[in-house]
């Protein structure tokens, strides 16, 4: 048993009795984080962290970085029960969750199976709330799960078909919700609330009906509602709109360190809303105690220099994306000639080998990035060098040869190749023009491609409309980052490698087909793409890790050999700034939305201010 130590922060509340003692606040079995075992030091309570967000919406970073999940990854990307005391799964079909006894919401109300029941029955399965039924993530082979309350601490979800992604969704940075604080939410639900009061509330909130009100009040991903009880390490105190959000420690948080201190160590987090453009400047002026969002590799020099002036430390973490910047030829392009070319693997390969990745690496990444195809990183157990090197060499002669083979033999007077129908081969690349990095890389690529007789024009438009335009076939090539999760384990979903979503700009129409379960879009008519879909479905149905490893391997091999997206470099570095006094921030780590939830898996609740430093 632990010798519990109360944080200074609650001294008053504890004294006047508004807050029970820690022993009562904690679940019977809290999650004990053994810092020493993680190579970190147990810390001390206290302190306020300033951090900057680029927009009000970014308070979701608190949910992401807070990373309190029913089930979550640890530093080594192994799934661990977190809010749950334990979980069990059978054949990826039946999932049984056991809650921690005595676990409480941040307002002190017990967190129980009722909260699951409320959400399942009164929200998910409420026809008014969800006229179109359950969210896709809860369906497997288009069928919903069965939900059972096994005992007062246990719930179970079971499907007929395997649903291997279920736990991953729970562990994801934007987690699938399974429970809401019923005691709070019921006041907004007609089944429980007094109709008149509810009507008044609806009127006040200016939503059309109670569902709007209910949605507004129950947002967990964007913790905008200070009244909404939470299980996160910090809870919001300020309702938007605001220029500054303050989060304070959740007195009922379920994690403790090995010395008996309740996490988080740090009492408050203050998020200042700023223009994203000046985040580097502010961070470099010592105005942030923990900052990664809004910083880019290009800011490193400045931040490093600021170390002399302000008590901050800058670390470089490695991005987990498959490619920092990737070019995605749209296989569903509306222009027939271009579409034909894009579907010709020789053309895609030519585009890829025509790029001088080394130059880009040198110019924009100080030579520190890894020249690579758009694929997984060496940190992934699935990694093979052949994926990285697949068509990622710089070989303009080969490119020329491939292009000639693809039928682009004619040339205009200025050396630009001619399409079979006589037009000049000028590729229009869609860019959001958000970062100079993108502009620079494109400028270099323009030159590289020009060497092999392809003209490139950049068109800037809002990224926001890319998807619909790509779906409509208006986009030829777009620039984006590559595969999100570059460090997958076999148990993670390979969906990024197959046409599975309409936001995959290399094949949005095929993606839509999969996403809508063959209702919309078109089935892939390119054998390799169809193969990827097939493998994806296989992965979903598989139950063993070996089988999944195999599938992953096949898919990676197809994806890289076929060059469905043209990666440039990966393993680029992300500056992470923290106050010099702040302890336990890893010096080196992986950084990405998926699967590390940015800082999430490194548990920012275990960071602490060393007052002696």
């Amino acid at each position: 048993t632990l010798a519990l130590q109360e944080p200074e922060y609650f001294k008053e509340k504890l004294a006047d009795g508004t807050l029970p003692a820690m022993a009562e606040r904690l679940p019977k079995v809290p999650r004990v984080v053994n810092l020493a075992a993680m190579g970190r030091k147990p810390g001390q309570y206290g302190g306020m962290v300033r951090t900057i967000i680029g927009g009000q919406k970014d308070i979701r970073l608190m949910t992401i970085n807070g990373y309190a999940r029913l089930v979550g990854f640890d530093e080594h990307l192994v799934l661990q029960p977190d809010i749950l005391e334990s979980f069990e799964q059978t054949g990826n079909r039946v999932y049984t969750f056991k809650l921690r006894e005595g676990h409480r919401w941040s307002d002190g109300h017990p967190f129980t199976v009722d909260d699951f029941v409320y959400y399942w029955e009164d929200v998910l399965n409420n026809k008014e709330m969800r006229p179109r039924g359950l969210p896709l993530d809860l369906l497997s082979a288009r069928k919903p799960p069965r939900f059972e309350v096994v005992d007062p601490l246990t719930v179970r979800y079971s499907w007929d078909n395997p649903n291997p992604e279920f736990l991953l969704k729970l562990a994801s940075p934007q987690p699938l919700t399974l429970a809401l604080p019923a005691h709070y939410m019921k006041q907004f639900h007609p089944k429980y609330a007094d109709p008149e009061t509810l009507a008044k509330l609806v009127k006040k909130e200016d939503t059309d009906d109670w569902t709007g009100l209910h949605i507004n009040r129950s947002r967990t991903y964007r913790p905008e509602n200070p009244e909404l009880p939470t299980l996160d390490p910090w809870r919001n105190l300020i309702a938007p709109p605001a220029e500054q959000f303050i989060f304070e420690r959740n007195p009922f948080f379920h994690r403790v360190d090995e010395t008996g201190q309740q996490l988080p160590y740090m009492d408050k987090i203050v998020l200042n809303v700023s223009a994203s453009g000046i985040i580097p400047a502010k961070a470099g002026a010592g105005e942030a105690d923990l900052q990664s969002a809004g910083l880019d590799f290009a800011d490193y020099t400045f931040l490093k220099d600021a170390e002399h002036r302000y008590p901050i430390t800058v670390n470089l973490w490695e991005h987990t994306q498959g490619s920092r910047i990737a070019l995605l030829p749209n296989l569903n392009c509306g222009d027939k000639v271009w579409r034909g070319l894009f579907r010709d693997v020789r053309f895609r390969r030519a585009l890829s080998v025509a790029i001088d990745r080394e130059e880009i690496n040198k110019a924009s990444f100080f030579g520190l990035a890894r020249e690579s195809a758009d694929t997984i990183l060496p940190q992934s157990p699935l990694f093979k060098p052949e994926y990285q090197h697949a068509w990622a060499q710089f070989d303009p002669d080969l490119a020329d040869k491939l292009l000639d083979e693809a039928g682009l033999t004619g040339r205009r007077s200025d050396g630009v190749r001619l399409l079979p129908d006589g037009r000049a081969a000028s590729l229009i690349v869609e860019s959001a023009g958000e970062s100079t990095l993108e502009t620079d890389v494109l400028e270099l690529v323009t030159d590289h491609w020009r060497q092999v007789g392809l003209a490139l024009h950049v068109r800037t438009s809002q990224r926001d409309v890319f998807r619909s335009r790509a779906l409509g076939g208006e986009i030829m090539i777009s620039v984006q980052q590559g595969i999100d999760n570059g460090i997958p384990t076999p148990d993670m979903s390979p969906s990024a490698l197959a046409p599975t979503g309409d936001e995959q700009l290399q094949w949005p129409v095929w993606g839509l087909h999969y996403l809508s379960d063959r209702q919309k879009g078109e089935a892939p008519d390119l054998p390799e793409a169809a193969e990827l879909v097939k493998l994806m479905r296989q992965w979903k149905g598989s139950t063993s890790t070996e089988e999944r490893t195999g599938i992953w391997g096949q898919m990676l091999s197809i994806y890289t050999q076929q060059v469905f997206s043209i990666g440039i470099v990966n393993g680029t570095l992300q500056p992470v700034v923290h106050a010099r006094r702040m302890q336990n921030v890893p010096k080196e780590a992986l950084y990405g939305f998926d699967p590390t939830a940015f800082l999430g898996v490194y548990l920012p609740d275990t960071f602490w201010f060393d007052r002696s430093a």
Partner: protein
Amino acid sequence: MLRYILWRIAVMVPTMLLISMLVFTIIELPPGDYFESYVAELRAMGEEADMEEIEALRERYGFDQPAPIRYLHWVGGMLHGDFGYSFEYQLPVSDVVGDRLWLTVLVSFVTILVTWIIAFPIGIYSATHQYSWGDYGLTFLGLLGLAVPNFILALILMYFANIWFGTSIGHLMDQQYLNEPMSWAKARSILEHLWIPVIIIGTAGTAGMVRRLRANLLDELQKQYVVTARAKGMNPFRALVKYPLRMSLNFFISDIGSILPQIISGAEITAIVLSLETTGPMLIKALQSQDMYLAGSFLMFLAFLTVIGVLVSDIALAFLDPRIRLQGGSTK
């Protein structure tokens, strides 16, 4: 005159209607709608969006209806004070705007005031001391301010103000005063920060004012009535203020209507760079993400200010020049 003013006010109604149509077109013009942006944004963060949910949202906000109907709905709503809903903030527009409106007005008015306070004396000085060192020097300074793009000036000022005076980077006040009610300390903090945007936004306008005032004055100073005033034994400065300056005010007054939109437009980029708590950044963001009602409300608000400004300018012009007042209505 009263009749004229009433008539001018009446004319404002169709003008505002016309503007509202234009505004609606502008916010409708880019392809797609907010929900597109929404998906795109989630995707940019690596998140996934539930298509079904988005369709539902679309229906809920009437985006499946044709544009004219949405327009009528929007204008109708505005007439009774309902400015619509901000998708981005998931709040009614009126709640989102908050302090920003008056901070914008504050920044704009201080800028305008500072511009005038600086421009008038300098303009008069430059005109009366044409080709003196002072004239050249002030012209040079003014043009310098004009020649340096606002965002660079903003960056430079921000950087050095931080290094030299320790002013926190950007914003209109120190962070601890955000969300705070007004207090002396907060007001002081605002004043401490205000000078940077005011200088940045003001420089361009000041130079323009000075140069134009100078040009107009130089013309007027030659006129016979100035000689008459001198022959009366009038103090040259007083004579200048009473006669030529008043004549040269013509251009200045006709500009009043556009000062506000100009200042606000000029301030937008500065505001983004400095991350000011004004409407500019919010407006641009709303436009980019097609948070149309929010953008629309901002635009209508600015338009309203402009229309009022033009009204003021028209009336002031009539006050200023009896020739316009007494004969201006006629047609030639």
